[in-house]
C-alpha cells in the first residue's frame, strides 16, 4: 500500500456484490492493465463499508474520495479520474439528502462522521483476503503481545477490566465467562465463535467476517490462549458463502504464518480452528443448540437446570462461546488496554455497539456507535431521519426476540440495561426503523410468524403457543379479530415466557408484548373498529 500512489478500494460486501461490485472490480483491473496505467495504482477488494444503501461503493485513497452507486460503465471514467491530472467524478458523489450538495470525501459524510467505528474501522479499508493488509494495520500484534508478554490469567484480567459484555445479545460479562471456562476442570477445552446470525435484517456479524475476518480469528486465538483450549470452531450459517470463503482463506493464511497450528509464534501454545456451517436454523444461535449442532445432532436447546456451556459444552468439555463482534473486540482490548475500551460506553455497558440499521430510514447500513448513544442519534444523525417527510413511529431492536419501542422513547440510551428496561433487548444488533405507514399489529404478526417457524419444536409452549399467537394476530390483521383476543394474546405471552425451555421461546412473544404495551390502540382499532390505522392490513 505504501508504494502506491493511490488505491481504489472496491467494496465487496454482500450488498455491493449483489449490486455488481465484483464486475466493477474486475473491469477496473482489466482496464488498468490493458491501458498500461497500472503502475502506482492498485485496485483492492474490501469488506463492507457500511453505507449499503449507496452501494456499490468505491473509495479512492489516500484522499478518501467516495463514489456511490457505481456501475461498470463508470469504470473508464474512474480510471481517468485517478490518473495524473484527473478530476473527481462529480456524478458519483454522495449527495446530502437535504441540501442536495455533493459530499466528495468519505470523512465528511454525516453517516460516517457521527459514528465511532472501532471493530468496523478497517472493514472497507483492508483487503480481507490479504493477511498482510491486516498485519499492516497492527493485526496479530495483540496475539503476539498476549503470548509473549501476558499470562493467560493476565489476558482474562484485561478482558474483565475492559468491562466488555457478550455482543451476541444477552450481554453476559465476557471476562467472567472466560474466567469460569479457564477454571472449569478438564484437559480438553474449546473456543467457539457464534456466527449464526439469524435475525432477519441483521448483517453486522457477516460484515465483520467479510470485511475483517482476521480480527475474529485473532480474538479467538487469544481466547484459546487465555482459557487453555487447543481447538476452535466458527459456527457460520451456510447462507453466508462469502463470509465462509473469506474465513477459510484467512484461517489458511494464519496457519501459513504460524498463527494457527502447533507452537503458535514459537511458543508452547497450540491451537487450530475449523469452520462449521450451520443449516440456517435460528435456534442454533442458542448456545446449547449450537453445541449440539456441531456435535452432529439436531439443534435443540437444553433445559435448565444444566451446567453452563463453559463447564459442559462441546462433547461435554468446557467451551467458550462468544459472538463474532465480541471476538473482534479482543485484539483491540489487548493492544490498547482495558482502559481504552472502557472509556467508551456507559457505566454498565462498555465499548461500542454495532447495528444493522434498516427499515424506513434514509441511510440504511452498518453502523457502530458507543454504547449509550441515543436512538435519536442513530436514526437522525447517522441514519439521516425518515425518508419522504414521514414521521417516526417505532424502532425495533433485537430482532424477532426483541421489541418495538415508540417514537416517544427516542431519547433512551442504547445499551443492554436501558433497552431491557424498556421491554426490548440489545440483541445481536438489528435495528429496524418504522415510520407512520407501518402497522404495528402487522409487525408483530411478521415476527411471530418468524418465531413460530423457527421454534425447534421441542417444548410445547413455544411450538404450539406461538402458533396460537400467530393465528390470532393473523386473524386480527385480516379483520377477523374478536373481543378478548388481546387478553388471550396477553395470557399466551405470559405463559409462553414463563414455561418455555430456552431463550428463543421465552422471548418469542416479545414483539407482541411491546406492541401491546406501546401501541394497544392499534390493536383496538383493528379489532373493534375493523380498521388498520396505518392502512397496511386489508381488513376484509
Amino acid at each position: 500500500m505504501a508504494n502506491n500512489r493511490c488505491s481504489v478500494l472496491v467494496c465487496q460486501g454482500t450488498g455491493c456484490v449483489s449490486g455488481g461490485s465484483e464486475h466493477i472490480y474486475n473491469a477496473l483491473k482489466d482496464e488498468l492493465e490493458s491501458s498500461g496505467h497500472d503502475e502506482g495504482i492498485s485496485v483492492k477488494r474490501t469488506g463492507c463499508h457500511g453505507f449499503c444503501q449507496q452501494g456499490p461503493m468505491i473509495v479512492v485513497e489516500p484522499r478518501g474520495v467516495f463514489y456511490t452507486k457505481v456501475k461498470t460503465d463508470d469504470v473508464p471514467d474512474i480510471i481517468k479520474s485517478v490518473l495524473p491530472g484527473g478530476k473527481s467524478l462529480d456524478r458519483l458523489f454522495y449527495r446530502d439528502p437535504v441540501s442536495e450538495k455533493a459530499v466528495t470525501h468519505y470523512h465528511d459524510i454525516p453517516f460516517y462522521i457521527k459514528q465511532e467505528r472501532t471493530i468496523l474501522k478497517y472493514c472497507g479499508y483492508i483487503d480481507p483476503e490479504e493477511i498482510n493488509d491486516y498485519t499492516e494495520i497492527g493485526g496479530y500484534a495483540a496475539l503476539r503481545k498476549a503470548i509473549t508478554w501476558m499470562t493467560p490469567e493476565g489476558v482474562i484480567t484485561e478482558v474483565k477490566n475492559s468491562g466488555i459484555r457478550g455482543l451476541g445479545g444477552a450481554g453476559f460479562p465476557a471476562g467472567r465467562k472466560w474466567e469460569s471456562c479457564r477454571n472449569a476442570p478438564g484437559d480438553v477445552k474449546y473456543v467457539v465463535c457464534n456466527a449464526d446470525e439469524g435475525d432477519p435484517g441483521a448483517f453486522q456479524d457477516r460484515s465483520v467476517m467479510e470485511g475483517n475476518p482476521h480480527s475474529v480469528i485473532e480474538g479467538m486465538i487469544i481466547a484459546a490462549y487465555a482459557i487453555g483450549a487447543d481447538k476452535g470452531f466458527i459456527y457460520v450459517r451456510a447462507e453466508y458463502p462469502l463470509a465462509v470463503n473469506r474465513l477459510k482463506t484467512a484461517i489458511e493464511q494464519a496457519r501459513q504464518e504460524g498463527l494457527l497450528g502447533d507452537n503458535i509464534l514459537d511458543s508452547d501454545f497450540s491451537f487450530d480452528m475449523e469452520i462449521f456451517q450451520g443449516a440456517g436454523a435460528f435456534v442454533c444461535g442458542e448456545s446449547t443448540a449450537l453445541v449440539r449442532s456441531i456435535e452432529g445432532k439436531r439443534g435443540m436447546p437444553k433445559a435448565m437446570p444444566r451446567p453452563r456451556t463453559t463447564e459442559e459444552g462441546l462433547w461435554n468439555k468446557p467451551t467458550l462461546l462468544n459472538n463474532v463482534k465480541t471476538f473482534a473486540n479482543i485484539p483491540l482490548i489487548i493492544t490498547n488496554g482495558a482502559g481504552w475500551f472502557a472509556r467508551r460506553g456507559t457505566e454498565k455497558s462498555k465499548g461500542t455497539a454495532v447495528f444493522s440499521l434498516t427499515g424506513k430510514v434514509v441511510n440504511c447500513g452498518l453502523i457502530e456507535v458507543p454504547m449509550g448513544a441515543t436512538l435519536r442519534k442513530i436514526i437522525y444523525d447517522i441514519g439521516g431521519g425518515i425518508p419522504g417527510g414521514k414521521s417516526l413511529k417505532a424502532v425495533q431492536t433485537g430482532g424477532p426476540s426483541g421489541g418495538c419501542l415508540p417514537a416517544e422513547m427516542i431519547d433512551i440510551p442504547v445499551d443492554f440495561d436501558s433497552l431491557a428496561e424498556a421491554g426490548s433487548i440489545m440483541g445481536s444488533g438489528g435495528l429496524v426503523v418504522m415510520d407512520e405507514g407501518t402497522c404495528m399489529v402487522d409487525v408483530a404478526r411478521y415476527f411471530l410468524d418468524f418465531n413460530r417457524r423457527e421454534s425447534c419444536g421441542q417444548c410445547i409452549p413455544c411450538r404450539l403457543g406461538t402458533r396460537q399467537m400467530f393465528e390470532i394476530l393473523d386473524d386480527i390483521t385480516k379483520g377477523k379479530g374478536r373481543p378478548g383476543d388481546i387478553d388471550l394474546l396477553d395470557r399466551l405471552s405470559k405463559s409462553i415466557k414463563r414455561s418455555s425451555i430456552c431463550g428463543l421461546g421465552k422471548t418469542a412473544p416479545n414483539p407482541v408484548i411491546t406492541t401491546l404495551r406501546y401501541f394497544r390502540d392499534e390493536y383496538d382499532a383493528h379489532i373493534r373498529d375493523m380498521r388498520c390505522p396505518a392502512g397496511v392490513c386489508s381488513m376484509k
Partner: protein
Amino acid sequence: MEELVELTIDGKEIEVPAGMNLIDAAERAGIHIPNLCYLKGMKGIGACRLCLVEIQGLKAPVIACNTKVKDGMIVNTKTDKVQEVRKFVIDLILSMHPLDCMTCTKAGKCNLQKYAYDFELKESSFTRKKFGYPTDAANPFIMRDPDYCILCGRCARVCNEQGTNVLEFMGRGVDSRVITANDKPLQESGCTFCGSCVDACPVNALLESDRLRKGREWDYKEINSVCLLCGNGCDITVSTKDGVIRKINAGAEAGSAEKYICAYGRFGFDCIEAETRLTVPMKRVNGELKDTDWQDALAIVSEKLKQAGKEAGFISVAGIGNEDALTLKKLARDVVRTKNFDTTLSLYADSESLRNSQAANIDNADLILLVGLDPSQWKRVLPALDAAVRRRAGRGAKLIVVNSSETKIEEAATISLKGDEISILESIAKALTEKGIKADRRLVSSVKNAGITEPVEKAADLISGARSPLIFSSPALFNASANIALLKGKVISVGLESNARGIALMGLTTEGKTYREMINSRMKVLYAVGEVPMVKRPDADFLIVQNSHMTELAKQADVVLPSATFLESAGTMVDYMGRMKYLPKVIEPQGESKSHREIFTGISKLMGTPLKKVTEAEVGKAAKVKTKPAFSSFVKQEGLDVSPQELIESVNASVINGSRLLWLKETEKAIAV
C-alpha cells in the same frame, strides 16, 4: 451403603438416595408429578414443561425430571403457578390432538387423557387444527399415526439409546415430526420391530397394529411373566381378554436397562393359534400320522419306553421350565431307567459354566466386559443383552468387547479388543495383577508370559478403576473369563436358550449319551421334547416328538404329543443373570395340549412308577449352588460352536413361521437382497 438425602415434598418428609431426580423421589412418596416426556432411567430433557415444580428459596419453577434431590429441599409440586403452566400445556396439546377418546385404542392408558381429565379440559380453549399426516401402517407390527403425536420425543430417545436409531425429529416449529430416515416405512429403515417405542409412547401415536377393537385397556387382564424364546428370558407383561392374549409389553421395571423385549417376545404370541398348532395327540398308522387320544398315545409311548429301557434317549430344548426339566430327568432316570437325557444346551455350553455363573444386576454395572459374545438386536441373538449393554454404555458405563470376530456391539464399546480371546484375557489378567490386585499364585504364574498391549493396558485400567465390573462370557470362554472375575467383578455365562441355567441347575445333563450322540446313533426310542433343531429324522427305531407345533421333525415321528406353550403352563426358570423367575399360566392350553410335565407324569403312571409333583422346595434346592470361585486354566472349551442365530431361529421356527414374524423374516430377506 448408598447415601441418603432427606427432603420434603408437598409436606411429606422422605428419605431417598442422593442423586435421584425429583420425579422419582416424589413417586417414592406416592406423589405423581405430571410429565409426558420423562423416561425413567434416562436423563430428563424437560421438553414437556409439565413437571415444573417450585422449590422453596428458588425464584423460578424448575423441571423435576432433571433436578436432583438435595438435603433439606422443600418442594411443592402443586402450586397455582405450576398448575397453571400444566393446564396451559395440556390445553395447547389438545389444540392439535384428536379428541376421539371414545374410540381411541389408547384410552385408559393415555397420559394426555389422564391429564386432560385432571385439569378438567374437555377440549382446547384455543383454535384447533389437525396435522393431517398419513398413517404408517405398512407393517403388521407397529402403527404410527403422527396425528396423535405430541412430540414428547420418548420414542426417538428410547430408539436411539438402545442403539437402533430409527426414529428422529425432523422439521421445525409446528411442522416438527418424528420420522424415520428419509421418511421411509419402518421396515425400510432398519427397524427391528422391538416395539420399545410403543411402550414409551404416552398417547396413541405408536400402537401395536392389530389392536383395533380388540378390547379397551381397562378390559385387559395384565399378567407378568417371562419370555422363553431366547437366552435373555425377558420379563414380559401379557394382556389378555376373554382368555386370549391381546398384546405383550416389556415387563422389566421402569428405568432398568433391561426394559426391552424383541419382536419375537412381543409379537410371537400369534403362533399360539397358528395352523400348525398341535391340539391332539397323533400316532403313525400305516405310514400316516392320525389323530388319537391321550390314553392311546401315552399307552404306546410308555410301552415303547419300557421296552427300550436304558436304550431309550431323551433330548430336549433348554427353553423348558425347571419343573418340566426336573420331571423329565426323573422320568428318564428313575422311571425309564436310562442315563441318556440331554438338551440342546450341550451344543453351546458346558453345564458346569452355567452352574458356576454368578448372579448380578446389570443396572449396577459401571463396566461391562463382553467376552466372545456377539449379541445383536438385528440378528435377534440375545437382543435384550445387546440393548441393555448399549443403554448402560449410554448411561455412562464403560464397555470392553473381547472377540476374535467382528461384532456389531463393538460400535458402542469404549475399547474393542480383537483377537484370540484366551490370549487377550490372559493379558488383561496379567495387567490387572501388575496393578497390584491380589491373585491366586497359579493365576499369576499361568499368565507370566502374556504380553500387554496398550489397549489391554487401558482396558485393565478401566477394570481396576471400576466399582462393579460385570463380565458376560460365552460359555466356551467361561473359565478364562471367571479368572478375570477372580481379580475383579462378577462373571455371567450366557447361554442361548432361556432356561439354560435352570436346565444346568436342575441337572438335566446327560449321564450317558450326549444330545449329539443320541441323534447320531441308533436309539431304540428317541423322545424329543420341544422344538429341537432338527429337520431330518434321526436314525432311531421309534421317534416321539412332544411339541406345541407340528414341525418337520414331528411330521416324521411315530407319536406326536401336543404340549402347551410357555404362556399356557405355569413354572419357574432361572435367567442368565441368575434370577429365579416365575411364569404363571397366562391362558389355558389350546385344544388338548398339556404341559410337558403333565405328559411326563402321565407316562410315569402308565409305566407303574408315578412321579410326584415337583415342589417349589425341590426346585429351590437344586438351584442353590455352593461352588467357590477358583482358578482354572485359561482354556477355551471346544465343540461348543453352534451358530447362535441358526440355533435360536431353529428352536423358534414354529413361532416365527406361525406368526406375523414370518412377514418380518421375509421382508428382511427381501431387503437384504
